[in-house]
Every structure is written in C-alpha cells, then in structure tokens.
C-alpha cells in the first residue's frame, strides 16, 4: 500500500533542500547575492514560495484517513502567530500606543494559546485512536 522508502527519502531530501535554502535566505543577508541590494522581503517571498511547494508535496502524501487530524494539527501550528502576540505583550513602554498594543497582544496571546494547547491535544487524542487490526489468533 505504501512505498515508505522511496517517498520518505524523496520527502526528507525535499525538506532538507528546503531547509538549506531557507537558511541561506534568512540567515545570510543581501550581501551574499553578488553584492546587490536585495530587500529582505524578497528573501521572505522566496522562502514563502518554496514552503508552498514543500506543503504541496507533503500534504498530498497525507493519507485521507488522517485528513481530520491534518486539519487540527495545521490549526495548532498556525497558532505560531503567537510570536507576534508575545512581541506585542513584551513592548517596553506603554506610551505612544504601547498600551493599546499590549492589550491587543494579550488578547491575541490568549486566543493563540487556546489553539496551541487545544489543537495539539485534540490531535494527539485523535491519533491515539487509530489502531491496527490485532493479529489473527
């Protein structure tokens, strides 16, 4: 039913290649690209586009039986938006709009936390239910 060796190899190679690419895009600034001034957002777009392709191949390899856990786990990981919420909560000064930012950050943090804990836990609860047939006696 599954061809674990080939597809696993292809996928891990893909992930690795992507990681190397994203690393060069995120950690090495514009100077690396022949001295020209390439804006950071161009590198971000590159990572974004590559990640869409990685996502495309990875998601097609998900077995249809696990499509519901796929939705709940994508839900949980998209709550990584919590990093933005944390930055807002951790603002230094409450002057000049800082207070508003702190409040919005706190609201976003609470919502994202519901999603992080709820999303990962409900996914693991679901995945624990998928069992194989017991071997015939």
């Amino acid at each position, binding site marked *: 039913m599954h061809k674990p060796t080939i597809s696993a190899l292809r996928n891990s190679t893909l992930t690795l290649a992507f990681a190397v690419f994203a690393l060069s895009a995120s950690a090495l600034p514009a100077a690396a690209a022949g001295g020209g001034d390439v804006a950071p957002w161009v590198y971000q777009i590159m*990572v974004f586009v590559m990640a869409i392709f990685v996502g495309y191949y990875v998601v097609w*390899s998900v077995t249809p039986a696990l499509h519901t856990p796929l939705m709940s786990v994508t839900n949980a990981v*998209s709550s990584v938006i919590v990093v*933005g919420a944390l*930055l807002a*909560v951790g603002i230094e000064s409450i002057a000049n709009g800082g207070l*508003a930012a702190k409040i919005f950050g706190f609201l976003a943090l609470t919502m994202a936390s*519901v*999603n992080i804990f709820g999303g990962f836990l409900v996914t693991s609860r679901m995945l624990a239910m*998928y069992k194989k047939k017991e071997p015939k006696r």
Partner: protein
Amino acid sequence: MSEPMIPTDLVAILYLISGVLFILALRGLSHPETSRRGNLYGMIGMAIAIVTTLTQLKGGDQLLTWVLIALGLGIGGVIGGKIARDIPMTSMPELVAAFHSLVGLAAVFVAAAAVYAPDAFGILQVAGDPNSGIKAASLVEMSLGVAIGAITFTGSVIAFSKLSGRMSGAPIILPLRHVINAGLFAALVVLIYMFVVSGGDDKLFWAITVISLLFGVLIIVPIGGADMPVVVSMLNSYSGWAAAGIGFTLGNIALIITGALVGSSGAILSYIMCRGMNRSFISVILGGFGGEVAGPAGGGGEQRPVKLGSAEDAAYIMKNAQKVIIVPGYGMAVAQAQHALRELADALKEAGVEVKYAIHPVAGRMPGHMNVLLAEANVPYDEVFELEDINSEFQQADVAYVIGANDVTNPAAEDDPSSPIYGMPVLQVWKAGTVMFNKRSLASGYAGIDNPLFYRDNTMMLLGDAKKMTEEIVKAID
C-alpha cells in the same frame, strides 16, 4: 531596555528549525504509525518558537510583561486543554471551525498591535521616529493579513454556527449578493490603498477590519450545510494565508513557512472535497446548493414500490454472507451509531464474515470525518478503505450496508446525465448481492435528489434510527 540574550542570526535559525519541525509534523501524517511522532515534532517546534521569542522581548525586564504572558498562556492553555479533553469526536467539524476563527482573530489583533506600536515590530520607515510612518511593504503585508484574518474569523463563526446546529444549514441567499460582494471587495481594495498611503492610519485599519468581517459573513451564509467540507477546508487555507501575511510583517521565518504550509494544505483539501463532489470550487463558493440534513418524508419523485426489511431479515442475510461492506455517512455521525456499528462488525466476524468499510471523500461534514469516528469506535484503520481502493470490490460482496449515507451511493451519478450529481464519483453499492439501506425515512438526500437505488430489486430498506437499527441487527445475529 534589556539586551537580547541571543544574537539575531541564531534567532533566525531557531525560527527556521521550528518551521522545519512543522513540516515534519505534517509529514508524519502520511501514515497512522508515524503520525504521533509527527504531532510531537509540531509541539517541539511550537515550544522552540515561543521560547526564542521570549528571549527577544524588549520589555523583558518588566514584571508586567511576564505576568501578562503567564496569564495569557495560562487562561488559553486551561480553556484549550479542557476543550480538547471533553469534546466529543462527532463535534470535530465545529471545533475545527471554532479554532480557525481564533487564528483569524489573533491575526487581526497582532496586526492591530503593530499599527499602534510599529517601532516595537521594527517596521517604521525611520527606526525610533513614529512620525516617519510605517514602511509601505509592511503596510501591504499587514493589510492582507488583517483582511484575510477578519474574513477567516467571521466566516468560521458562521461555519461553526451552521455545523453545530445553532444556525440552519440552509443557504441564505441575499438579493443582489454578488453586487454587494463586489462592492465590498472594491471598498476593501480602496481602503487598503489609502491605508498604505497614509503610513498606517488606525482609523483606516479598523475600516479594513470591519469591511472584511462583513465580507466573511456574506461569503459563508449562502453555502449550504452539505458543502461544509469544502468551507471548513477553505477557511483552514485562509487562516494559513492570514498567518503568512503577519509573518511577512514581522519578518518571521517560522510564521511564513507555517502560513504557506497551512495555506496550501487547506487549498489541497478543498480541491479534494470539490473533486469528491464533482463540483468546481467556484460553484461551491457561489453557494445555494443543499439545505438541511434531509427534506420532508416523501419529498421527491413519484411513489414507487420499495422493499422494506426488518432487523431480523437483515441479520439473517448478513450472517450468511461471505463478505459485507459497510458504507457510513453523515447520518451515522448524527445518530452516534459508530459504536453499534463496530459491535455489528464484531458479531459478523465472529460468524466468519469478512467485514470492510468504504468511505467516500465527502462523507460527513469535514475531510476524514468518518475515519475519525470509526477510529473512535476502535475500528482498525486497515479495515477502512477509500473509494478508489474498494469500489471494485462491491461486486464480490454479498451485502453492502449503507448507514446514514445517500447521495454518495446514488447510481444516477453514473447513468443519468440529467441528474444534478451526474459525474460525481460514487460508491457502487448496487453491485453487491444485497444492498441494505438504513435511513430514517424515504426522503431524498441533501441535494434533494431521488435515489433510484431505493427501488432496485436487490435493495432492502431498513427504515429507522441508524443506531437503533444497527443494535437490533446485532441482537438478532446473536
């Protein structure tokens, strides 16, 4: 101001690692055996992202910051944990919709925080000078993030209300809705342009938010209950794109990677669902198809003779069969019949009958809905098959037991070009020796289409509640 504990380059690499762990989390779902490890990768990735961010807080030396963070994580964690523990598996579609709405709203709030304190996010034209305005690129990214986030929020709230029965599943068709939607869209484009030109005016920001919230409602209300698998997948996709938009604003690699992953994941699921119904994405979005779970009894077609059977008849035939294929549908979820079904399968296996399950891609209210319910009832996943893997087996089966499914077994999809579902891939249950069709009444399915299967010679109708009927069959077998 406290100095960051770790250098910026290392921070970027840590975010990248957490992004890669998220990829591995999704990758694990290619098989149930590897899925649990995948979920663990996801949790580790999230922990890395959170801890990394905590080392970067500019107000990291203030008590208030840490109190707020502990409170937010604590309140959210307790609520999320409690929901995850207590939610019944039949409610998964509405839970997922509710979670999507939270991601959408969180994206709106993070963007709002960035509008009010742009310097803290490093998006000012001139760092430290609030009068210089926010960078145009950041404003574009932010507006896209907030618009998609707000649409995701209200869209998911409507989807949640429809799925949980707080709102009728029937499509709500407003007059001139295409004109209204086009108008809202145009307004949105103009507002975003003005917002970018203004350098980040907060009133324009809220105007974008309000228009997008309204847009989200109007997009989802015309879509009927049975198209919900597409809607839930689509909102999943939107929540990803919203996260990516915010990721660009923050220049955060983890968020950009995740947004792209989730966005493409939801888009692929929407595509798979549309293919399962042989409908185009556009026609689903335009809506108006499908209403409540079932219309009134005797709602379609002329009266033709059907063969009614009792639980005893069904038990007798099933017990003497070699092979039985069970076809569950949304009705099984509504009646919570999955455990009774598992008992039936056990009783049949005890009698030496081979039992398999056949799942149509759009059975239920979200992708994979039936699989989760069967897994909950301890049905081994290697007895459960997808449409293309099992369709050829119906001709060797003695019995096909259709429980709570209807349109996905309708032969008209294959042989009646005038049928609205013509061309939709269906489970060929009619090729089995006997089709046992459990239904509450003889009403047509969601599409309001008569099912010619009911009137076939080899079909036996078992009218009644899915759970009660299945339990009675089990009793009659013993």
